[in-house]
Structure formats: C-alpha cells, structure tokens
C-alpha cells in the first residue's frame, strides 16, 4: 500500500508538469491573450500594443515565457494578479476561507442528509418514503441552480416568513451586513447559498447511497447479523452502511476539489466572495497569472483526491488490494 502511494505520487509529478504546460500554451494562444483588458479602448494604437507586449514579456518566445513562469512557480511565486492588484498567492489566500466555509458546510450537510435519505429509501424500497425521496432526488438533479437561487432569495429574503408574531427574513446575498465580524450574521448569510448548493449534492448522493444500500441489504452477512439478534438499526448502520458507503466515498472524494474551486453560479448569485468568482472574474478580464495559478492548483487537487479516493477504497474494502 505504502509503495503504491509513493509510486502514484511520483507518477503525478510529470502529469502536473504536462498539465501546466498545456494550460500555459492554450491560454497564451487564446485570441488577445494577456493583452485583452487593454484592447477594448478605442484610443489604443499599434505602438501602445507593442509597448504593453514588451512590458508584459509577451514579445519573448512562448517556451521562454513558460520556463520563466515555471521557474517562478517552483520558487513559490505565482505572479501578479492584474485583476486584484496583488500577488496571485495573496488573491487566492484571501478568497479561500469564504469558499472553504461555503463548500465545507455544504458538502458536510449534503453528506449527512444525502446518506440518511439514501438509507431511508433503501430500507423500504418502493414504499411511500422511497417514492418521496426519489421524487425529491429527481427534482434536485434537474433544477437549474440559478433558478433555485432566485426562488429561495425571493422566499426567504424578500418575503420572509411571519410566525409567532415575528417576521423572519434572511439576507439575500453577500457575506456580512456590517463591517465587523459577527458569527450570527455570518451564519445567516451562509444559509441560503449553502442550502442551494446542497440541493444537487443531496439528490445525487442519496441516489448513490440508495442503490448501493439496496445491494448490501440482500447480502448473506446482513441476514446473519439479523439472525444474531442485533437490533435493525445496528444491522443497518454498523454492518450495512460501512459497506454501502464504498462507492459513495469515491464520488464524494472526486467532488472534493470543489472545496477549493468554489461554485461559480452560486457564488455569483449570492455575491459570495469565493474562489469560483475569483476564477470567473479572472477569465472575464483574462488575468493570465491568476488563471494559471487557479487552474494549476485545481489540477493538483484533482490528482490528489483521485489518489485519496483510491486509497480510501482499499481501506474501506479489504477485498481491494494494490501493490
């Protein structure tokens, strides 16, 4: 197992270099390239373009540009983000906490609810509770996020709920109401985007849990556990769930890079200052250094979590062996 992890890690190094080179060449060859933000000015001249090219080092051969970028990255310098007026590393570190908070709570909440729903549906297949959960899952999977987001804003922020003589309303967007940190305020701002993001995940993960749980329930060891006189809850949770979760763990691990990558649509609609918006803004402005930094970071995480998924698989299922 240890050897396997070492071997996979070593294999990942050339892979990451290759990914970074491909990203660099594609982004450089995109029309406009790093000069794009300057080009929409009606007064720009050919001499202006030549001067800006020289300043940004774009008049050097492409491989020289790549090697110089790579050299800087290996020394921990991801370059300067034009669209944030600060170094790329700093720009990413500023946005990371907001995204970790949003994606972390959302993934945690979805996992809790999604797995619970999956079990409930599987325990009594084709019952009312199964049909209800299945309907919810199909609804959740087919709902466009932007529509759902608008609806929850309307319901919970614009109209709100009046009950027990109080009017409850949540903030529609943003990360805080005041300029100073306040935990209650932060949680209120978090709720709507977190719920919207969780919707799809709950739908997907409950379906996975249900189908995998259904298979497990039919196995001999489950019947044995019941025959031993264990309570139904212990049978389902201790003997069933651990085995049923194996495919779910893989799916969850593969969506884990989103913890850092953020969610573009949700963050945009809810004005959440996270990584998804950092990326989409960099793309719109063609902020070359930031785009490269973000994409290479996410590529690294995808490679990493793929490896972790494989390791977790072997750990959960003794029948799986790597050497």
């Amino acid at each position, binding site marked *: 197992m240890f050897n396997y992890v070492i071997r996979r890690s070593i294999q990942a190094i050339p892979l990451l270099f290759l990914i970074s080179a491909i990203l660099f060449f594609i982004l450089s060859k995109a029309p406009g390239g790093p000069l*794009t933000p300057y*080009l929409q*000015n*009606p007064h720009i001249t050919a001499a202006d373009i030549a001067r800006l090219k020289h300043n940004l080092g774009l008049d050097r051969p492409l491989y020289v540009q790549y090697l110089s970028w790579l050299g800087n990255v290996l020394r921990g310098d991801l370059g300067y983000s034009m669209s944030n007026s600060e170094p790329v590393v700093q720009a990413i570190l500023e946005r990371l906490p907001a995204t970790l908070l949003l994606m972390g709570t959302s993934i945690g909440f979805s996992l809790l609810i999604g797995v619970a729903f999956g079990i409930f549906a599987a325990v009594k297949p084709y019952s009312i509770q199964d049909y209800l959960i299945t309907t919810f899952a199909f609804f959740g999977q087919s709902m466009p996020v932007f529509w759902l987001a608008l609806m929850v804003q309307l319901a919970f922020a614009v109209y709100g709920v009046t009950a027990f003589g*109080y009017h409850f309303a949540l*903030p529609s967007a943003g990360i805080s109401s005041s300029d100073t940190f306040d935990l209650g305020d932060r949680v209120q701002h978090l709720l709507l985007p977190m719920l919207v993001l969780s919707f799809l995940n709950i739908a997907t993960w409950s379906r996975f849990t249900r189908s995998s749980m259904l298979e497990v329930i039919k196995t001999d060891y489950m019947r044995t556990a019941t025959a031993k006189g264990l309570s139904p809850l212990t049978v389902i949770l201790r003997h069933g769930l651990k085995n049923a979760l194996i495919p779910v763990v893989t799916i969850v691990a593969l969506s884990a890079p989103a913890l850092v990558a953020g969610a573009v649509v949700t963050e945009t609609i809810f004005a959440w200052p996270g990584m998804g918006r950092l990326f989409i*803004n960099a793309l719109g402005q063609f902020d070359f250094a930031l785009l490269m930094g973000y994409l290479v970071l996410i590529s690294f995480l995808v490679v990493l979590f793929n490896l972790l998924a494989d390791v977790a698989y072997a750990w959960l299922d003794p029948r799986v062996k790597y050497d």
Partner: protein
Amino acid sequence: MSRSRLAFTACAALVALVVPACTTTTAGGRTGRGSGSTVLHVGTLIEPNTLNPVGGTLVLESRVANLIYDGLIRVDDRGQPVPDLTTVVPSQANGGISRDGRTVTYHLAPNARWSDGTPVTARDVIFTWRAIMNPRNNVTTRVGYDQITTMHAVGQHTVRVNFKEPYAPAIFLFADETRGAIMPEHLLSRYADLNHIPFNRAPIGSGPYVLREWRHGDRLIFDANPLFFRGAPKIGRIELRIVPDTNTELTQLRTHEIDATTDLDPNQLAAVRGIPGIATRIVSTNGFRHVSFNTRRPPLNDPNVRRALCYAMDPDSIYQKTYFGVGLRAPADQNPGSGWADPTLHYYPHDPARAEAMLERAGWIRGADGIRTKNGRRLSIGLVSVTGAKANEAIEVALQDAWRAIGVETTIKNFPGTTLFAPAAGGGIILSGNFDAALYSLFRDPDPNDMGFMGPNGVPPNGFNTSFYADPLMGRLQVEAVRTFDLRRRHQLYDAIQRMIVRDVPIYTLLWVPLIEAYDARINNVKPSPTGIDFWNVTDWRMGG
C-alpha cells in the same frame, strides 16, 4: 442511535443560533445609525482591478477614482468640464489658453491636500503626466498626453502645459474620465514603474473620500475625507458592494440591503419603479451601441448595399423591443447628451421597398430561395457580436429578420469579448477585418474628438476604426477640429463628419447605452454625468427627510 440523536441536536442548535438573529436583519433604514453619520451602500456588478488610474482599464475604475482622487477638471451632468483641482477651467477668453492655442495654464486650489496632509502642488501634476508617459508603466493609451511637449511649474500652485500643436481636446485631459487623475508625487516618485505597487490597492488621494478597506470580491469601504479642500462630504461613508448579478441587485434594492446601483438592465426598469422609496434615473452614457459595417470587404464595400440595409431596418421597433424605449438616440458617433450630436440628422426611415429597389439597381437579383445574388455570389453577410449579452442577441435577430425581408441572408456568429476584440495579430475577429457587420458598444472620451475610432487615422492597427472607413476628407476635417478652439467652428466640423457618417454609413448607431440607475429617494442632488460617472458631485449629495 446515539449518533443520530447527536446530529439532530446539532441541527436544532444551529437553528436556535440563527433564528433569533433573523429578526434583526429586516429593518430597512441602515442610514443614520451610530454616531449620526450616514452610510450609503452602493451595489456594483463588477469590481475595480486597480485603484491606480494610471493602469486602469475600466469605466468603473474612473468612477471609483472620482471618490479617491481629483482631476484638474471634472465632467458635469451635461458633459461639460468644470473645475476640480484647478480654480477655473482654462479658455482663450480667460487667458488660460494662449492665443496660439499651444499653452494651457492651470491654477491649482491652494488649500488642496493629499489625505496624508501633504499639499497638492504643480509638481504632482507634472509627475502624473510623466507617469502616464513612462513607457514602463502599463498605460492603455496616452492619447492627448502624447501631444504635450513640456510642463513647467510656476510657483507652487500654477502649472503651464505646452503642446506640439494647438490641441482642443486638451481641456478634457487630467480628468478621471481621461485616466488623468492627479497622483501624489511624494509617495510614488521612488518607484521605477507603478505596475505592481501596494499603492494600487491602498491608495492615497486628494479626493472627497479615503479608502478605508478593500475586501476583494465583497466590498470597498470609503470614509469621508476630513481634509477635502472643498469641505468634507455630507455622506459619512460609502460602501461599494460587489453584487455580480443584476437580479440579486434588484433583490437587494427591494430588501434595502443596498441603497443605490447604476447598472440594472432595461428590462428591470418596471420592477425597480415598483419599489417604494427607490427613485430611478436613466442616464445616456458616452457608449454607443452600433453596427460597424466592414467597408473594405464585399459586399458591404458598396455604400448602396449599406444604405439598403439601413432602409430595411425599423430603428423605432428595435429600440422599443430591445431597449424598452429607454436611452437617447443619435445615428452617428456623437452623444446627444453632450450637446455635440447634430440635431438635424435623422435615422434612415423604415422603407423596405426603397431598399429592394437600391439592391436591384446595384445588380443584386432575388434567387429562387428569396436571397439575392450577383454574378453567382449570394448576398450573404456575417454578423458578429459578443456572446452572452441578451440585448445583443435580440438586436441580432431583429436585424436578421429585417435584412431577410429584402433578400439579404445574415449569419450570426458570436464570440467571447476576448476573441472578438483581440488584436489582429492575436486572431481578433474585428480588428483583423474578418467580419461583415459587427454589433457592439464603444465607450468614447468626453471630448468630441473621434480620430481614434473613425476616419483614416483610426484604421487598425493605429486605432479602433472597425469599419475601416478612411475617407481622406473626413481625416482633414478631424485634424482641423482638434486644432481649433473656436466652439462654433468645432461644431460645424463635427456636424460635417456626422453627416458623412449618416451618408456613407460606416457605422449605424442604434442607441447611446443607457445606465438604469436606482437611488434611495432620500438622497438629494445626484446628477449623473454622461461619462457614466455619478460621483463627480458626490460632495453635494445629502440625505433628505
């Protein structure tokens, strides 16, 4: 069992934590809170890239610069220059512009100070010009500033600017709108270039507000500058909240989480007008949404084909359907809101029969499928625009229908802005002339000078004349128009240029891009400028009853 109960308890605790707090968020007025100072929350769709105007590329950055910095002049709600740091706008009448038109003299307000307390002097103005001209700085364009030969300080507060030749647009130089806000020499002269310095996100200016904090992706917080030379503004704090979605902006106006925004969509106007306590304003900006016809490439190199396309369009119907009748219109390249549009010019009337007759005369005969051909060539044009802009798509379809009716086939191809506007060498669609008609908006400077995007001097790669229309007579008129300070003569010249545009239709302006602005009705004295900047008179804003 114990675990699931624990989870339930945790959920209940979360709800308990949140719900009591919920009741506090609904209160509408967040103004007048605390020590009696007023906070204004302004929503903005996009965020500045930099707070240093020397390296700026966005209109929004000029708008924010209006808060932090001062120009020598600023542009008022009629598009006219009014004093900012200078005590009087120079003219030949007041002696500020020399008889030969080559020297402009500015007298700075003697009490102007940087927000760190240092006085603003003539040296700062000269430093600003040097920074713009410094080839190491990533400045987009130096148009106008490159006409200056030398600058001299005459004492502390007078600066004399010498031009190569008489240059009428000089009056709009050194303004936020022309990326010429005055920069502090004492803080910046030590840098070889200004591209990557900490000042760009933590600036010091002389303007009415000082930046307190910039939380990237979330908000910019500005406090009234107590040292501001025209007196501290009445609104104690302005928060620019970044809300990157227009629907969310509308929602936040409804919930009064924001008090103002300037970038709503025309189709939201009815909804905004229904919000109690919110007043709306429509401002016509210096951006014109137009169709650029490629006058170099057949079939649109024939002016008669271009005119036929104009007669085929129904400008009123397009205006109503896609812009809901919002925004000013003028068919050429001068803004009717600035006073430079020739009021005698009109759109081509909707006359498809005349359009068809013109095409017949030009030899384009209808084929079996209804599309005209000439010498075996179909009358087919490619219309390009930016992807993702709903208004553009609606206009494109309207044009396609109108032109189909007179036997012209239109193929719509949209590209991301980065591809559409890239330089020719980078495979850009428009600047390499690889299109027949292009629909997009161009934002121009407040001066009527249009050499950068119209006529022979602006043909790519020397400018942004995307119609490639290069009539030498237009070039001569443009040169004379930047050399003369006589307003009547300038008007005659730009009227003549606009008549040439309407006659030969290198471009067809659909409308002047309107800003749909919404402000809390209690804020008085908001008078947005056609440059797209509402903060030019922010010191006069106050909260009414």
